[in-house]
């Protein structure tokens, strides 16, 4: 019941693969993996959520925090491969208007 977290260096930037359920128990694990990536100056971070089948407000809060940190460090954070359920929670809360979320699943192979 822990998150599955893996990072991969890209030609430009880093890709963070996340798998599992992001909730109050697992959100600290996500935070620990994600924050150091976006807290670098001018970093480019892709967060791949393909294997995430559940998220709630605790997880959304981690992404808000990461967005603020990225903004402070002139970094870019982009979420890709969200399933419909996960995408929907970003939409309902309006977070899809402030966080960069790839529209289609195809866009994720960059």
């Amino acid at each position, binding site marked *: 019941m822990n998150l599955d977290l893996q990072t991969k260096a890209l030609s430009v930037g880093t890709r963070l693969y996340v798998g599992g359920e992001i909730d109050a128990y697992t959100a600290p694990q996500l935070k620990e993996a994600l924050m150091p990536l976006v807290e670098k100056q001018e970093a480019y971070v892709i967060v791949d959520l393909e294997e995430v089948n559940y998220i709630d*407000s605790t997880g959304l*809060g981690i992404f808000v*925090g990461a967005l*603020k940190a990225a903004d*402070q460090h002139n970094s870019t954070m982009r979420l890709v491969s969200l399933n419909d*359920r996960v995408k929907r929670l970003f939409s*309902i809360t*309006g977070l899809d208007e*402030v966080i960069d979320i790839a529209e289609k699943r195809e866009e994720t192979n960059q």
Partner: protein
Amino acid sequence: MTELQDCIEMTVPAKPEYVGIVRLTVSGIANRVGYTYDDIEDIKVAMAEACTNVVEHAYQDEGSISIRFSVYQEYVEFKIADCGQEANVNALKKYRGPIQPDESIQDLKEGGLGLFLIETLMDDVEIKQEKGVAILMKKYLQKDGVAHGSDGFKATINENR
């Protein structure tokens, strides 16, 4: 017509590792009651939000989360209660909305979306002061593909599937 059919109760420690266990039980019950896939996922989120609030806000020290499912013909009433300190329930009832796109990034808050999600995902939500905070929420069963209640957003989502 709305006679109580079944009542299920559960008490778990107010610790983050139990929120996932509650979700598992919720999905079993919601499945058995006959909710659609999307409704089950909505209920799981709303229940987790309410439980997470107890974990994070109700107790100074240790405590527990009390959960009750009351199954009626047309809906289930979910109750999540704690025995925490007296909370300002009126403050909990203030207007909540989604994030505004014109807000500056540095002004965004990392919290404060839990109750908004509960209100959006469930059909009828009531917050009460009992021993601590009690949240009662209803979710109607969809019959013949028609959503009861006023959850227009969900109806749209379902159409897209």
